[in-house]
């Protein structure tokens, strides 16, 4: 090989080495960028989840927050409604619950079980929750009851009410399951799903929210209430029309007058449900179930 040929070969080798070093450096830079991007994505997702967990998420924060002032005040008014007012109301203008004769007892953890199945969007559920909350408050304690309204785009829009979603009820005498199957906000497929109905609850709906217990045309309607498989209520006990355009404060204020349509609706249904619950709890507690007005309604229910 000539001297000039050797120099060219050496130059080519140097060039190749240089290119290899440069390629290696470029690859290292790309790896650093790729690693940074992956780490960045991981950190971003961790931040979103971490902040969500720490704050409970914007939406959850609202739902899980302690009951609003309106809900707390309304609950206090309902629970503290004078006995004399309730006695004066009697059963008001409400319909009787359906008697479920000779059915297996519905219980949970040894206590008779009351089940409510409804939805937040439903105006009839909105109306019915008022007497349910009041009747049950005579037997136990509510916590985390939140204020809400029925859907803005359904009949009787924005009916003020409570939601059983996230609420808890404790009682020495009975257990309660409140299911709100959908929210009051529309999603892609109708109202957004909320609480799932268990198989056992679905069976109750299937069995007792259908003929012969309810007319064929109203089978499956909500709200549905089952009191220990002794009594059932399908639909609301009074019309949501009574609550139209009212705030929670206006509704609770109207309860003071036993002649007001709102008091006759809510208080009357509450008395009726209280009597049904008393039948379920075998008359416990006596201070509630042996009260003259409730005893009278219980007698009326037994005669049915």
């Amino acid at each position, binding site marked *: 090989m000539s001297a000039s040929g050797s120099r060219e070969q050496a130059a080519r080798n140097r060039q190749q080495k240089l290119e290899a070093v440069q390629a290696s450096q470029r690859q290292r830079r790309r790896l650093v960028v790729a690693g940074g*991007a992956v780490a960045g*994505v991981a950190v971003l997702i961790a931040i979103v989840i971490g902040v969500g967990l720490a704050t409970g998420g914007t*939406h*959850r924060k609202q739902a899980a927050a302690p009951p609003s002032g309106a809900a707390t005040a309304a609950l206090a008014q309902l629970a503290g409604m004078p006995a004399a007012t309730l006695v004066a109301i009697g059963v008001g203008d409400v319909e009787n619950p359906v008697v479920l004769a000779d059915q297996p007892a519905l219980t949970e953890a040894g206590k008779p079980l009351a089940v409510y199945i409804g939805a937040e969007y439903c105006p009839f559920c909105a109306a019915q929750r008022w007497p349910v909350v009041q009747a049950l408050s005579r037997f136990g304690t509510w916590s985390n009851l939140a204020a809400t309204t029925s859907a803005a785009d359904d009949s009787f829009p924005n009916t003020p009410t409570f939601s059983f979603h996230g609420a808890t009820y404790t009682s020495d005498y009975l257990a309660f399951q409140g299911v709100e199957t959908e929210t009051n906000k529309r*999603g*892609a497929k109708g109202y957004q*799903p*909320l609480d799932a109905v268990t198989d056992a609850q679905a069976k109750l709906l299937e069995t007792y929210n259908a003929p012969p217990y309810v007319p064929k045309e109203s089978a499956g309607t909500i709200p549905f209430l089952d009191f220990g498989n002794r009594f059932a209520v399908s639909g609301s006990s009074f019309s949501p029309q009574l609550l139209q355009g009212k705030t929670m404060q206006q509704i609770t204020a109207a309860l003071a007058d036993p002649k007001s349509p709102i008091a006759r609706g809510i208080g009357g249904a509450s008395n009726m449900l209280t009597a049904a619950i008393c039948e379920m709890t075998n008359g416990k507690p006596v201070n509630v179930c042996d009260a003259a007005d409730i005893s009278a309604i219980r007698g009326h229910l037994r005669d049915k």
Partner: protein
Amino acid sequence: MSSVGASPRWLWPACVVPTVAGFAISGYLTWAHFREGAVLACPETGVINCQKVTSSPQSYLFGVPVAVLGLLFFAAMLVLTFPPAWRSPNPLVHRARLLTVSAGVLFVIYLVYAEVFVLDAICLWCTAVHALTVVLFAVISVGTAVLPDQG
């Protein structure tokens, strides 16, 4: 410079596993979306609520169900991560792969945000798809970085 035949051996298996799994889960979510009355096999324990997530307004993007977008995404990734695509001398193929998976992972961040902050519900199947997308993003990012120089 050509990269023909130069992609690492681990690259395709590392891509195909999350891609096929993501395609299968997206297919299941798409089936459930269009099948009337179909209910996802998913526990509903309050925060875990697949139905709430998959029927929410956030389950659509410009009128297209997100499940369908996921299916199309993984179908595209299946093609773009096939060995001949990794060996392609055309740099556009490699850029398209990186851009597609980057768009996918950005969309995942949005969907996680929507689940946590808007819907207050987590869909386990969707979470699996999100995790697979992030894994795919990591593999493709590193895989693209270790490829020989593109032209």
